[in-house]
């Protein structure tokens, strides 16, 4: 077991990097997964509005109160750049400026001026801005109707408030015939698994590839070839090492996942998600082995790890949910294993529709990748062995 031991001796030197990744990952996942309770009642995706009150009157304040009741009121400094940033990053969806003279004009039933009462400062034309405009218009309409009816401003504002705060009747239902969701595997916790592919690829390619590359270095390999260790034993020890390493890394993530989960995983869907992640850990390890057979140097390995990790994660829905990506993208993404991992994960968490047999299809897709990668590795290592022997030309004229 010499080679096996050597494998882990090299691996131990990389423990720091692995730890770095795990800690960063946990630091990110904890707040994301535990940010709020699982939503069981309907929770309205509120529209974030900031208001700049130039009028500063009872009427304008009444309006702000009404806005705050139905929307998420964001306090922003009256500064164009601050509003610009908040709007760009979608912290606010719309900014409403209540213009000077707002109260005065509302009070006057004969006001037919088409001068705007509001100004909205928008970054983009969205559903939220359209809704805000609609909301403001309806408010003014109600106000005018009531004022025209002879109500005082305060009375009108109160009535308009009541009208606009009427909420539609919404109910979350479990439709008859629907597959009951496994509430042990929540949409929130599924985030942890959703990000895993990036981490697994980054660590596997960064660490496993480097270990294998240094084991594969030409003189080392030649030394082994000359030693009493049989090549087949050498290869099998390396495979064993990679296997144990993969299980170890995967195990670390499963255990740290329990920290995020808050205890041992429960339920069938959790078990399937864990299995799904194991399949992917194997895929990531095989990718790493595949890369190492090209003998890249340190910087290059890092670059490859990031391209593969980031690229596949984006394209296949690890960072942005698959539902948000276009159909074309999802079509292309099918050729990457991450897609099937994410799809299975989404279905298990109830984010995408699909039953257990659909999940099984994803597992099969992942298994096919494992097979394909193994075949590729075998072919490559066989061909490389031949090439090295043929083209060793070294100048020697000493």
């Amino acid at each position: 077991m010499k080679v096996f031991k050597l494998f882990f001796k090299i691996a131990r030197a990389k423990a720091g990097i692995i730890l770095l990744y795990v800690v960063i990952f946990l630091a990110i996942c904890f707040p994301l997964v535990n940010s709020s309770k699982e939503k069981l009642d309907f929770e309205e995706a509120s529209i974030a509005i900031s208001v700049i009150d130039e009028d500063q009157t009872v009427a304008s304040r009444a309006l702000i109160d009404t806005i705050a009741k139905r929307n998420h009121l964001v306090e922003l400094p009256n500064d164009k750049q601050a509003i610009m940033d908040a709007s760009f990053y979608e912290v606010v969806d719309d900014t409403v400026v209540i213009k000077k003279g707002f109260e005065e004009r509302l009070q006057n039933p004969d006001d037919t001026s088409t001068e705007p009462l509001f100004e909205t400062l928008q970054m983009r034309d969205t559903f939220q801005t359209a809704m805000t405009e609609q909301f403001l218009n309806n408010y003014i309409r109600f106000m005018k109707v009531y004022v025209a009816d002879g109500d005082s401003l305060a009375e009108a504002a109160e009535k308009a408030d009541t009208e606009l705060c009427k909420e539609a009747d919404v109910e979350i239902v479990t439709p008859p015939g629907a597959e009951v969701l496994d509430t042990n595997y929540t949409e929130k916790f599924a985030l942890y698994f959703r990000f895993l592919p990036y981490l697994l690829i980054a660590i596997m390619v960064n660490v496993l590839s480097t270990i294998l590359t240094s084991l594969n270095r030409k003189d080392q390999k030649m030394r082994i070839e000359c030693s009493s260790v049989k090549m087949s034993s050498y290869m099998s020890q390396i495979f064993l090492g990679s296997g144990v390493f993969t299980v170890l890394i995967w195990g670390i993530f499963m255990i740290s996942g329990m920290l995020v989960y808050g205890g041992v995983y429960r339920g069938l869907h959790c078990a399937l998600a864990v299995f799904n992640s194991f399949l992917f850990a194997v895929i990531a390890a095989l990718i790493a082995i595949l890369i190492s057979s090209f003998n890249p140097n340190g910087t290059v390995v890092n670059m490859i790890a990031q391209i593969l990790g980031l690229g596949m994660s984006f394209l296949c829905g690890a960072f942005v949910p698959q539902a948000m990506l276009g159909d074309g993208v999802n079509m292309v993404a099918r050729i990457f294993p991450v897609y099937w991992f994410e799809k299975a994960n989404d279905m298990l968490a109830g984010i995408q529709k699909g039953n257990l047999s659909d999940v099984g299809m994803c597992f099969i897709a992942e298994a096919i990748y494992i097979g394909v990668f193994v075949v590729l590795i075998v072919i490559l290592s066989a061909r490389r062995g031949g090439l090295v022997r043929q083209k060793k030309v070294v100048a020697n004229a000493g």
Partner: protein
Amino acid sequence: MGDTVVKIENLVKKYKELTAVDHLSLEIKKGEIFGLLGPNGSGKTTTISCLLSLLAYNEGNIELFGKPMTPVSYDSKAKIGVILQNVAVFDELNVYENIDCFCGLYIKDKAKRRQYVDEAIEFVGLKDFTKFKPKKLSGGLLRRLNIACGIAHKPELIILDEPTVAVDPQSRNKILEGIEELNRNGATVIYTTHYMEEVEQICTRIAIMDHGKKIAEGTSGELKRMIKNTETVTIEMDEPDSGLLETMKNLENAYEVRWEAGKLKIFFAGGEHNLLNTMDTIRTTGTHFGQVTSELPTLNDVFLTITGKELRDKD
């Protein structure tokens, strides 16, 4: 001759517990090929690094060309050529570019540099390989490139730290000849190695180091004279009886007789015709014997005698 190029006084360098160099003093004169001989770990490379002001040392003074050596002694540095133990060339640059790259650290003038680089290539015999990248060179050629990078600027003092490690005999001879040629052209050479043959072959003066201490210094002959043994005669034979051993011990100049592993060894101190005397005596006893050899002492014997261990451990 006679000008002191390097002067080391009482140099002490400690790594935590370990004292790597222990009160070492050396003086190297212009025109010498000075050999620093010692087993691995005896402090040769550390001494060189202190000499070059790469390493901080705990005690002692170092002067080069009559001036104290500091990291900013650029005048002195300009006159030194260094070839360190490990090959330090860039894989991305070819032979010519590598030499030019390092030579450029010393020589500003482009035309002059081109001439120097060409000469260095000629000197180490890499003319056919100027466009080769280091990876395509064999071990010996790589060493020669490494040397060319260190001497292209025609330094007055050349420091070579084990330049022949892992080099085939042909290349090694070429390198040693080159060093002698550089010396003939006026360069002072400091040469560290644990190959005593090399030292014997080219060095004008030798210091032997062990455990950071200088244990002997002098020319090859002077060193050998330091030990009692001047000649060892070895005779292949069956185990002798005590009478024969006694007879042999009574030979003129012989001071010790030992039989081990089918060989009788007789050690002589001084005197002449020791081999002839031995042959005569053994013939009179009528003993059967095989091959007879006579060996003159080597630096290894010197080292062995002083330290009680072989100079070259299982290297």
